[in-house]
């Protein structure tokens, strides 16, 4: 069998996997996504999209250029601010109004969401993976305002058109973080016992990454590093050229925990401040 004969067989085999025309229901769902009309297909997510769209914050773009200098406005802050922003709640432990984070739809501001072994095991079961081993350390967090929406990939996002910000709130392992954190996709995972400094260094050396800034911070009272990078369009992220990613790498004793946010340059400072408030609200078990 020649190479071209084998390639022809591959083409034929792939063509056989093509289901043909798109189902009519998908076209209806497209209209629902764009025009916010309530409907049935994937109604849970579609309704959440409609609610999220209705809660868009109208923000006047200030022409603000996000600074990446690590020490402006306080070390480890996502935005330079005159005074550190206080966490939206002073309660260190889950409140009676707390609930489990299940990555499904709009989030309620002020509610403390918990994410731990049970939630991760359930999520992995849903996706056909074994439970995490060793057990992971749980944490909780709060979103400060309405308009935050959770998806099935353990991300929360907020849209302030024409920009949007995404925060990966539950990345437990490097490979998981690589799925949801664009900058990490092309990098080899560091050793399982790598320190936050080593992880930060690995990120910083990624090919094509620009404007790297690494600073010290704390997350949930634990020492952490925050790495802010700019990605070129060729990196393959869903965003346009110049996507900014902030990655918090928390030293929690066994393996580092990652949280990451991705946003377009020019995203309104008020939205980025909310991301920082969410990070500031994190409490570990």
């Amino acid at each position, binding site marked *: *069998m*020649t*190479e071209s*004969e*084998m*390639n022809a*067989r*591959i*083409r*034929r*085999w*792939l*063509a*056989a*996997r*093509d*289901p*043909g*025309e*798109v*189902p009519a229901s*998908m*076209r209806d*769902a*497209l*209209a629902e*996504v*764009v*025009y916010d009309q309530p409907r049935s*297909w*994937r109604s849970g*997510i579609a309704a959440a*999209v409609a609610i999220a769209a209705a809660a868009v914050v109208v923000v006047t773009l200030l022409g603000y250029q996000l600074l990446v200098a690590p020490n402006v406005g306080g070390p480890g802050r996502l935005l330079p601010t005159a005074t550190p922003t206080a966490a939206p709640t002073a309660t260190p432990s889950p409140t009676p109004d707390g609930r489990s984070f299940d990555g499904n739809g709009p989030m309620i501001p002020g509610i403390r969401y918990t994410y731990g072994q049970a939630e991760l095991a359930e999520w992995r079961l849903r*996706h*056909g*993976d074994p439970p995490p081993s060793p057990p992971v350390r749980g944490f909780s967090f709060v979103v400060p305002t309405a308009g935050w929406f959770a*998806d099935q*990939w353990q991300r929360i*996002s907020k*849209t302030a*058109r*024409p*920009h*949007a910000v995404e925060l990966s709130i539950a990345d437990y392992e490097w*490979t998981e973080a690589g*799925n*949801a954190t*664009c900058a990490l*996709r*092309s990098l080899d995972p560091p050793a399982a016992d790598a320190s936050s400094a080593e992880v930060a260094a690995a990120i910083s050396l990624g090919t094509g990454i620009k404007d790297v800034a690494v600073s010290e911070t704390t997350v949930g009272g634990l020492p952490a590093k925050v790495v802010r990078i700019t990605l070129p369009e*060729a*990196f*393959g*992220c*869903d*965003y*346009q050229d110049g996507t900014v990613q902030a990655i918090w790498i928390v030293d929690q004793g066994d393996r580092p925990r990652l949280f990451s946010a991705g946003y*377009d340059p020019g995203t309104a400072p008020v939205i980025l401040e909310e991301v920082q408030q969410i990070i500031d609200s994190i409490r570990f078990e």
Partner: protein
Amino acid sequence: MAAHFERTVAATDERAAFARLADRELDRAYRLAAVLLGDPVEAQDATHDAVVAAWRRSGSLHDPDRFEPWFTRILVNTCRDRLRRRRRHPAVEIDLAWDIGGARDAYADVDDRLALDRAFDSLSPDHRLVVVLRFYADLSIDEIAQRVGAPAGTVKSRLHHATRRLHAALVGEGDLDD
């Protein structure tokens, strides 16, 4: 002409413009996802997720002429995420409904499908992507590179590796004519 019209609409009705652009890509996107994921139902979910993500970020797309590669990249990333998180348990299917007159060809196709299914499932998500974009979507190396966000050299390397694995599967279970 069409591009000018799209820009005019976009200036006055962002939603209609996005809906039009997305609708134009929907068939192709869904079918690409189905070939990649091997599951039409999951392909519907993946395509829906990609549309939602694209709509949220559509304000940052300044050139409607770039909608297709931009949306395909979002779809590719969505599918890649699903493949990485999916525990695959390859299922062996045997299609017994073949025409007697074409039995030899049908048997070869079934044989190919079993061998290629197994080999394809053993590939990483990144390798599966380049195979599908090359042999199903007929994209050039540069076009693939643009959509998967990797340099052309990396795409070539992945394609070479993946193609060798698929060829080996065919030679191992098919006829040797050479």
